[in-house]
């Protein structure tokens, strides 16, 4: 059994006291350890934002890249490094805003990786502008009269886009979150998990209390094999907010036929060059 302490490092954490990110980080650590994964077997690709700092606060392989671009990084790693568990983890602005095109196309490819979005419905790191999931009417320094763009519903889009695993959890319910994370990591294909995360500094609407009062677990009576049912549930947002696995399905994964490269093959790629003469035939 791997100890969750194996994932601990000593970086000073730059999140605000009380931020939902702490719970997510601790839960991830547990989820991984309890799946018996060691830090060197896991890699987190992240973007830029508060959420995206997560690989710094764990002892884990990490590629902390550009704002909005973690999905392509993770996708290529999932395809070429089949020996690693790949997690893409970032914020709602990062994945649904700047990175929206990759989000859209990721479901079409279905790479074998987990996608965790810390959805605090706001741009945290840049000090509180609206994110694509901010609610209508929310006032910010830029949206001075309140948000007027319709918030996007990431679960609905994922379902419409062909996702094979669509789930939601809440940073305030660590047990549930852990189970969601684990199932996502074990899913074969792209496992999308939207995590409701209170931002104590900038989001005064969707607070811990606000979420707490609304979230409920749909697992008991919900059949995640039904796309229609998933869709219906994904549209629920307001007085009640369902969490759990909305939808799950198996489908071809990205680069399925591409072999798992051994470390040797990676170190010495020349070994793979054969049939050169046949190739040259084309040019005479």
């Amino acid at each position, binding site marked *: 059994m791997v100890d969750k302490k194996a994932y601990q490092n000593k970086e000073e954490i*730059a999140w605000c006291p009380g931020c939902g990110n702490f719970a997510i980080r601790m839960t991830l650590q547990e989820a991984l350890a309890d799946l018996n994964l060691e830090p060197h077997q896991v890699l987190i690709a992240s973007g830029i934002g508060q959420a995206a700092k997560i690989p710094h606060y764990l002892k884990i*392989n990490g590629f902390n890249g550009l704002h909005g671009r973690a999905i392509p990084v993770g*996708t290529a790693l999932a395809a070429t490094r089949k020996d690693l568990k790949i997690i893409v983890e970032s914020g709602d602005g990062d994945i649904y805003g700047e990175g929206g095109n990759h989000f859209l196309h990721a479901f079409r490819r279905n790479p074998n990786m987990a996608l965790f979005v810390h959805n605090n419905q706001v741009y945290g790191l840049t000090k509180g502008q609206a994110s694509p999931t901010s609610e209508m009417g929310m006032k910010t320094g830029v949206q001075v009269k309140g948000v007027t763009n319709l918030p996007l519903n990431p679960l609905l889009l994922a379902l419409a886009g062909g996702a094979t695993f669509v789930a939601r959890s809440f940073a305030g319910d660590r047990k549930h979150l852990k189970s969601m994370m684990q199932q996502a990591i074990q899913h074969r294909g792209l496992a999308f998990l939207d995590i409701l995360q209170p931002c104590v500094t900038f989001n005064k609407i969707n607070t811990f209390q606000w979420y707490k009062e609304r979230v409920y677990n749909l697992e008991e009576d919900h059949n995640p094999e039904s796309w229609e049912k998933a869709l219906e549930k994904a549209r629920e947002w307001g007085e009640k907010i369902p969490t759990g696995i909305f939808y799950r399905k198996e489908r071809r994964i990205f680069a399925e036929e591409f072999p798992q490269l051994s470390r040797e093959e990676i170190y010495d790629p020349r070994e793979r060059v054969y049939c050169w003469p046949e190739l040259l035939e084309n040019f005479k």
Partner: protein
Amino acid sequence: MNTIGSLLAKALLRMGFHVFTCKDYMSRIRGGHNFSDIRFGPEPLQGGAEKVDILLALNEETWELHKNTLGETGMLVYDEEDFTPKGEEGKRKGLPLSKKAEEIGDKRIAGVIALGFIHSVLGLSPDALENILAEKFSGEILQKNIKALQWGHEQGEETFSVKPAKGLKGTKLINGNNAIGMGALVAGVQFYAAYPMTPSTGVLNFLAQQGERFNILVEQAEDEIAAINMALGASFGGVRAMTGTSGGGFSLMVEGLGLAGITETPLVILNAQRPGPATGLPTRTEQGDLEFVIHASQGEFPRIVLAPRDAENAFYKTVRAFNLADKYQVPVIILSDQFLGDSEQTVAEFDPEAVQINRGKLVKDYQEDTPYLRYRFTEDGVSPRLIPGEKGQVVLADSDEHNEAGNIIEDAQTRAKMVEKRMKRMEKIKEEMEPPLYNGPDHDQADYILVSWGSNYGPVEEARLALNDDGMKIGHYSFSDIWPLPEGKWREVLKGKSLILVENNYSSQLGSLLQKEGLGKPEIFIGKYDGRPFSGDELKRRIKKEVASSG
């Protein structure tokens, strides 16, 4: 038109000629005016000619557009059913191409009839072409093709006298795009992500087609931003990765280029230039992106730019690009263009065995007790690179400024040290850059020195040789390793000389770079920015004129 051209080129190749073909096509799918320029002879060729000896015009538009290019002794071959050429230029031979093709039973073979005729005019046997047709077709279609070829061959008689090269063996006809693809193959590329964009798509096609055979994962990304970030992800994972595009796509990759820079992730990026700005002329050629790729992305970080001279050079430079990327953990840009990418030329067979692979400071087993540090400070600025997945160790790359472990920092001292760590590699890289290639008389005997870069090598060489034959004393420096500008004695030589810069752009971008390094003001600039490549003849003419008026 392209098919007929490529049949002829292949036949000439097999008969032992050096061949150079150049494609001129419009940014549309059907119709419009497209043509192939085929040049051949006993000597190596690296560019087109201004004047044409045999012009095959399957319609009147072609004749009208090209009549000025037909040389004095040139011959027009045309379909007499289609039009009757006006004007008196050169010899001409009308053939009932489409009529005869229909007679034989397939409209599409009109071109083959013309090829048969052209063979006879050149005094060449149609055997090689017949073999090629037999490799492509069979049964009735083959029979019709052969009939067409033979009938065409019977219509002409030897008018031009041509001699193949001596001892040409194993030579292949390869365009720049395929050469780059082959270079990537033997360098061991394992991942290629790209978004289609003319004129870089050839490389994507080539690698996709070889992907299964050579175990390469080739992915068409949703956009160029995804492409470069995918390639970076793969490279961080340890596999050799590459992406390719043209100007507009490169613009979208600029942020990713900086990411390669700060994360010190090796990456090979092909920018196959076409005329800009923006969409510009998608299927034409230009060298307008040199200063752009050298300065692209915010902040300062080392990078390497290699501009291959020709197909053969493109092959070896591509391998070199991968090695340099790994050795210095920097992005390497291969700066090619449509002229190089689409032009086929005869090259000596590439030897994959002669190619060395250097993966730089890639750590196989990390044995130390201390945790691995991705950005460890070292004397040369290059940190040992561990592939993620090594038991007991983790690897962290970061696009923020970071400490040796890869964790975000904000303090002034670490920041400054990291900038210095990254930048000092530039000094070593500079030493490794290959100096420009010099051809011509001894430096002190040359009155002028031509300076070119990348794919202009061939046309400029042709012009130089012709000018030297005319008695001019003129040398030629051709840059291929272009950024950072190499060290070497060329720097001293250039300072005192009258330079003639030849570039396929408006503002003389290499000229700017030379001046920046204090190498004096180039005297003459011969630029071209109409989307077309230089030919040797044109250059010769323009150089003579400029020298006359400046002298």
